[in-house]
């Protein structure tokens, strides 16, 4: 009998397979991964994986786990088509798998530059284990790196490279780092941190070309030419939605799903980075690229597919380790119209509380794990402590206010 077929074995797809068994699902589970590597954690690729030449990938679940849970893992297999009428998926090797439920957990791929020189040897992206191995193998002897793009992956890589004594320049087109992902206050604190690590941060600059004879030698900006032994392009990601398009599912900035993560075909679902889902609260469709979003959507869908319909509604959270700085974000800053900032004893930015029409909607923290964990509770419970309490940045006082507010609610 046909069971669940999951395409994509990243954080979301792998958690779904595990979650289905946790929920008592007894049918077959096929987990199909175009990536040939055993399913692995992505965030360490730009950090601990780079530290030693032989650092292993960090498995999401041990190989023994897949065997124990009777999850059929198909590594290095690309799904080439969906037959919605027959409810089958075709793989590149010609095999056909029937499904009762099909889940697209295909993630994103790096957005490509289209500038002259974009395909010169020495130009790297960093999303998969194979990208990370290529970058790690190319680093010995490299003295100067240009990172194109001031997003999380590029900045984490820049901090890591600076830590190895490499001269790093970040070139960002926008007037500041981290675009829509973080507030201007946090972006500035991150820029200062990178500069303290020795990274040169250029914002508001246009990249005209990547230059070199046979391999990369420089990056030409509108304003100057930066010599480079290696270039990392980190200009965002685009959803992998080719299968969904070919199958005529609704696609708009990702595979469009409802609150139960069903696509326009009720037997096909999507989750994680590739899915455009209705935001809890306002119902507007959005797409998030994060480990939390992928794994929490996988938990909700596992329950649904095991017979307990569960709408997705978790508070989003996110983290980035940029050198020694731990940036954490809870909630979505989107509609915020007021920001309360707090600073540590050293005068450095510690947290930013974002309010929209007086309600707490997001909290950014820098090296302040307690405030972050507490922020997730506040947002889950929908409570907003008084402004003067938030402004203390004192987790114990904010916790006391939260307890008061939830006790009387």
């Amino acid at each position, binding site marked *: 009998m046909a069971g669940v077929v999951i395409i994509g074995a990243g*954080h979301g797809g792998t*958690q779904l397979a*595990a979650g289905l068994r946790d929920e008592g699902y007894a049918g077959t589970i096929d987990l199909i991964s175009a990536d040939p590597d055993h399913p692995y*954690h992505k*965030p*360490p690729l730009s950090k601990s994986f780079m530290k030693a030449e032989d650092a292993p990938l*960090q*498995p999401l*679940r*041990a190989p*023994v*786990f897949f065997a*124990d849970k009777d999850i059929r893992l198909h590594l290095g297999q690309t799904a080439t088509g969906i037959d919605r009428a027959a409810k089958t998926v075709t793989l590149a090797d010609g095999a056909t798998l029937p499904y009762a439920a099909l889940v697209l957990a295909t993630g994103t791929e790096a957005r490509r530059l289209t500038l002259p020189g974009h395909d010169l040897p020495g130009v790297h992206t960093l999303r998969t284990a194979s990208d990370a191995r290529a970058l790690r193998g190319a680093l010995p002897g490299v003295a100067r790196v240009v990172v194109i793009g001031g997003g999380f992956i590029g900045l984490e890589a820049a901090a890591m490279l600076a830590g190895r004594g490499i001269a790093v320049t970040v070139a960002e087109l926008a007037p500041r780092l981290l675009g829509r992902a973080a507030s201007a206050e946090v972006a500035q604190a991150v820029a200062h941190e990178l500069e303290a690590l020795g990274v040169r941060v250029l914002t508001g600059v246009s990249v005209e070309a990547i230059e070199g004879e046979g391999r990369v030698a420089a990056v030409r900006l509108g304003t100057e030419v930066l010599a480079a032994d290696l270039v990392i392009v980190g200009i965002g990601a685009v959803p992998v939605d080719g299968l969904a398009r070919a199958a005529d599912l609704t696609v708009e900035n990702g595979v469009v799903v409802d609150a139960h993560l069903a696509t326009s075909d009720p037997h096909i679902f999507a989750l994680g980075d590739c899915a455009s889902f209705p935001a809890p609260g306002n119902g507007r469709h959005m797409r998030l690229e994060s*480990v*939390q979003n992928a*794994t929490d959507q996988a938990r909700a869908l596992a329950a649904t597919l095991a017979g307990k319909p569960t709408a997705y509604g978790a508070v989003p959270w996110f*983290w980035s*380790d940029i050198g020694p700085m*731990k940036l*954490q974000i809870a909630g979505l800053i989107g509609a915020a119209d007021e920001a309360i900032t707090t600073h540590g004893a050293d005068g450095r930015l510690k947290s930013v509380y974002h309010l929209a029409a007086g309600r707490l909607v997001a909290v950014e923290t820098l*090296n*302040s*794990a*307690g*405030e*972050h*964990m*507490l922020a*997730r*509770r506040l947002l889950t419970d929908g409570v907003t402590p008084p402004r003067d309490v938030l402004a203390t940045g004192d*987790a114990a006082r904010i*916790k006391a206010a939260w307890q008061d507010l939830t006790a009387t609610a």
Partner: protein
Amino acid sequence: MTKITFIEPNGTRREIEAADGQSVMLAATGAGIDGISAECGGSCICATCHCLVIDAPQDLPEMEDTERDTLEFTSDAMQDNSRLTCQVEVTPALDGAVFQVVGH
């Protein structure tokens, strides 16, 4: 190699041989211990590797602030013997230790 026992959420006791130098979380997930999802991969962020130290032949090294703060405000109530196992290194001093998985 260091022998560590985990009590999984369903009560099953499993003893594993852990390589020294890695985190207790990595040793546990590598052995397929149930209930430790370790979502953040060991960055001391998600608290999904939360375990209770049921027995330890020697005191574990003290927690750092990040671990303490993350535990204090996590949704699974912190207890006196709570640890985030991604922050605990496997050393011969842990031989015979018993961790109860809090789960997520």
